[in-house]
């Protein structure tokens, strides 16, 4: 699957934006400027970007607790994201959601999710909506290897299979659910093989290779748009930071992490490939790096300079309408 030059540039920019956003969030969190629970996506960029490169704002995605990457890949504004992490009134959710609940319905980003596995049925619903309304839209559900052990995974895949819903299920297998290895927690071989249980295609992609993800997601999404129903795409990937900010990571070695940070880094691999193949130049890529660096600087400044929400906001946005006001 050939990727047009413009698309390649956009893809690179999104991958780098994720990496830099996460690196910076890591530092901001350590410095005590971001409250709450934060799970970083660094390392898995090729998955979110490789999949979302096929989507428009009409297409919907559901995400996870580790959702910053999906949001950036889906085009959500980084200023609003960083302000949300900071808990500010200018945040994507006015400070009400935080890292685990950033959404942008206008861009088809139906929200991160603090509940493992919960996005799967919601994505089926977005696909059902497209099917009933007769649009060409598709839905994508991202979830982890741990999430694939939830009942919602089973129910969602079966529902999508029998209704031929235009949905792509993306299992982001980063090897761990918190500290638990996928080899311990998941019976059977690849997660992708679970697709057979429902008679739908199950595909494994190298989640550290943008081109592999892009190609396989493209095929699956095209099939979904054509009315051929869902696919389960398992992307083998790796997270470079701990499960959450604060994780001491006794369950894996520094050597393992370093190997992925350097040899297997999805962004390095992308750079190497596009420059070797003469698709893009190092200068072009460096320029993007610099631009993103500025954009993230600006996002942090925007967040830090934004006001906190008015405490009175605590009781708004519960209902669209409610006769009695909320005490």
């Amino acid at each position, binding site marked *: 699957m050939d990727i047009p030059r413009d698309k390649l540039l956009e893809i690179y920019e999104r991958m780098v934006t994720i990496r830099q956003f996460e690196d910076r969030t890591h530092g901001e969190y350590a410095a005590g400027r971001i409250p709450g629970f934060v799970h970083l996506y660094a390392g898995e960029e090729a998955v979110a970007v490789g999949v979302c490169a096929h989507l428009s704002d009409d297409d919907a995605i559901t995400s996870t607790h580790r959702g910053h990457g999906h949001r950036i890949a889906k085009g959500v504004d980084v200023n609003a994201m960083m302000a949300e992490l900071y808990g500010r009134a200018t945040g994507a959710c006015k400070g009400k*959601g935080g890292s685990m609940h950033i959404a942008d319905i206008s861009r088809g980003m*139906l929200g991160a999710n603090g509940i493992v596995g919960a996005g799967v*049925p*919601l994505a089926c619903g977005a696909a059902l*909506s497209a099917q009933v309304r007769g649009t060409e839209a598709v839905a994508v559900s991202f979830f982890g290897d741990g999430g694939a052990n939830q009942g919602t995974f089973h129910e969602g895949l079966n*529902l999508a299979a029998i209704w031929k819903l235009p949905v792509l299920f993306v299992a982001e297998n980063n090897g761990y659910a918190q500290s638990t290895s996928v080899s311990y927690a998941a019976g059977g071989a690849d997660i992708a093989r679970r697709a057979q249980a429902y008679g739908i295609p199950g595909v494994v992609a190298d989640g550290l290779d943008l081109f592999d993800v892009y190609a396989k997601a493209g095929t699956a999404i095209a099939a979904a748009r054509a009315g051929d129903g869902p696919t389960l795409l398992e992307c083998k990937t790796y997270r470079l930071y701990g499960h959450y900010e604060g994780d001491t990571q006794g369950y894996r070695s520094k050597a393992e992490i370093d190997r992925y940070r350097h040899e297997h880094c999805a962004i390095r691999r992308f750079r190497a490939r596009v420059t070797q193949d003469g698709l893009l130049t190092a200068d072009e890529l460096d320029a993007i790096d610099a631009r993103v660096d500025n954009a993230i600087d600006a996002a942090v400044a925007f967040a830090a300079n934004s006001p906190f929400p008015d405490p009175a906001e605590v009781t708004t946005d519960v209902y669209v309408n409610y006769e*009695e006001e909320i005490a």
Partner: protein
Amino acid sequence: MSEERTLTLGGAIHEALHQEMERDSTVIIMGEDIVGGAGSDEPGAEDSWGGPMGITRGLVGKFGRERVRDTPISEAGFIGAAIGAAVTGLRPVAALMFVDFFGIPMDQIYNQGAKLRYMFGGKAKVPVVIRALIGAGVNAAAQHSQTLYSIFTHIPGLKVAVPSTPYDAKGLMCAAIRDDDPVFFLEHKTLLGQKGHVPEEPYIVPLGQALVRREGSDVTVVAIAKMVEVALAAAEELAAEGVNVEVVDPRTLSPLDTRTILESVEKTGRLIIVDEDTPRCSLATDIAALAADEAFYSLEAPIKRVTAPHTPVPFSPTLEAAYIPSKAQVAATIREVMSA
């Protein structure tokens, strides 16, 4: 003439679904066997079930299988899908069959459906209706007889409707479907066959408006769903004894029309809540607490609650009869507060 038009409560719900689906093509309905016969080639198999109590029978013929969907037995999956569809442009009405099954899709309902709007800073709406059968009285035992509305009322972001008449059933269903928030719509299984006046044209009974079903000056009885008729019967009995009972039907539990309840208590000075749900952390305590705070100075007697006991619902007819709050219990409690 239209005064005379009667439907059962189940028929009123059917009519509301029919009319709303006609009015708005984004309304879809889904649930286990709400059509029936899916996957069968047998002539006449289609619509052979029609959902719990046959309420949705006939809708598939009019609106087709795209908008009237049989689902697998996957409550978390299809209720979650209904919520996802609601966020993306449809107005799904999902049938959970028995409310007792809520423990399976509850995460989708309360952590997703009820909270998306708030968590997203007001930038989503979730116009989904979840229908479910409630109530004891048909010996369906512990897993098919509960009411459980106290739990849904507890959850911010949900609305809860509990019609006690066919008229309200239709009006509340129309309101629920048009509402932009998630609504639990609870149908008491022993009321579905009850007949009453229902106008043919679509109409709305607003969510959050109680109704004084019987005016009285001595004591306020707030009663929910099936308990409305139990309370009214007790009131008749007491009328013969010269006691003037006011019966208030909240119709929706969230929002709760606190004003109508408080005005009644201020007038009568006495309050009893009759609730088929179990007693702890329930609507009965909710309404009692409301009055014990905001109508305190009007109260002339202890606030009494007539509820099911703190037990699962038993199967045997003799036990189930002892479980459900009875007219005799309500009447005795009215006498007790009148002599307080």
